């Protein structure tokens, strides 16, 4: 077994490009591109509160079912992938959905999540989000 003790990984040829070999060995991919750049679990109930997160500086309650999330370190553009889910209700078949607000202007550091229950805006008991993209 080998172990590397290190605080920072930097590409030698290009600082932001470290190559890793695929599980099957047939391909290589850029390590930085595969890493999630932020994630967050929070509750929308009562005072909106972050339960745990990475690279999320703060959240803001923007109304029923709506949360604005601000990143600690910004992305390079406003175009990045945001994937989320929500949990609500007490039954196994409750209709909960999580979406990206289309009437909110996404920036390199801020986006808004919109949760619904039975097709209506609703404060989710738990909401989850992960972002992938290019950090600035």
């Amino acid at each position, binding site marked *: 077994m080998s172990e590397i003790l290190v605080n920072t990984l930097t590409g030698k040829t290009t600082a932001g490009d470290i190559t890793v070999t695929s*599980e099957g060995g047939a391909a290589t991919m850029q390590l930085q591109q595969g890493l999630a750049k932020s994630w967050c679990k929070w509750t929308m109930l009562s005072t909106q509160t972050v339960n745990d997160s990475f690279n999320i500086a703060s959240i803001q309650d923007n109304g029923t079912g709506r949360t604005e999330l601000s990143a600690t370190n910004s992305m390079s553009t406003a175009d990045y992938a945001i994937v989320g889910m929500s949990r609500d209700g007490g039954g196994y078949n409750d209709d909960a959905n999580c979406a990206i607000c289309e009437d909110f202007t996404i920036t390199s550091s801020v986006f808004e999540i919109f949760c619904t229950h039975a097709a209506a805006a609703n404060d989710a008991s738990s909401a989850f989000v992960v972002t992938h993209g290019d950090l600035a």
Partner: protein
Amino acid sequence: MAGKIIADTLEHSTAGSIATNYVVNGSAKAWAEHSSGSPSAIKNSFGISSLTDSGVGYSTLNLQNAMSSIDYSATGTSGTSACAFTTSPSTSYYEYYSYNRTSLANAIDLGNNNSVVHGDLA
């Protein structure tokens, strides 16, 4: 040749350590933000070679590197609506379906669709 390190563990001075198989297995193999409809286009992505408009609400995202099997995780979220993945996955593409959240049958094109793929590359 820039150099190559073969290691089983990475350890940070304060943030803990991680086995490198988590780095390889845990990294997203592809992600995309795309619009469907007019225009149907990739806004930003990694590991995606192209996008095909497969009809209202349907987008086929082609992977740059194939997965080792069809058993991989694809997750997504769309703008102010809902999304799902259709039932015919391939090692080289997946199909994203966006619909009005009030009805699975109401396919719609959206400006903001997001997806992430985790699994084993070939």
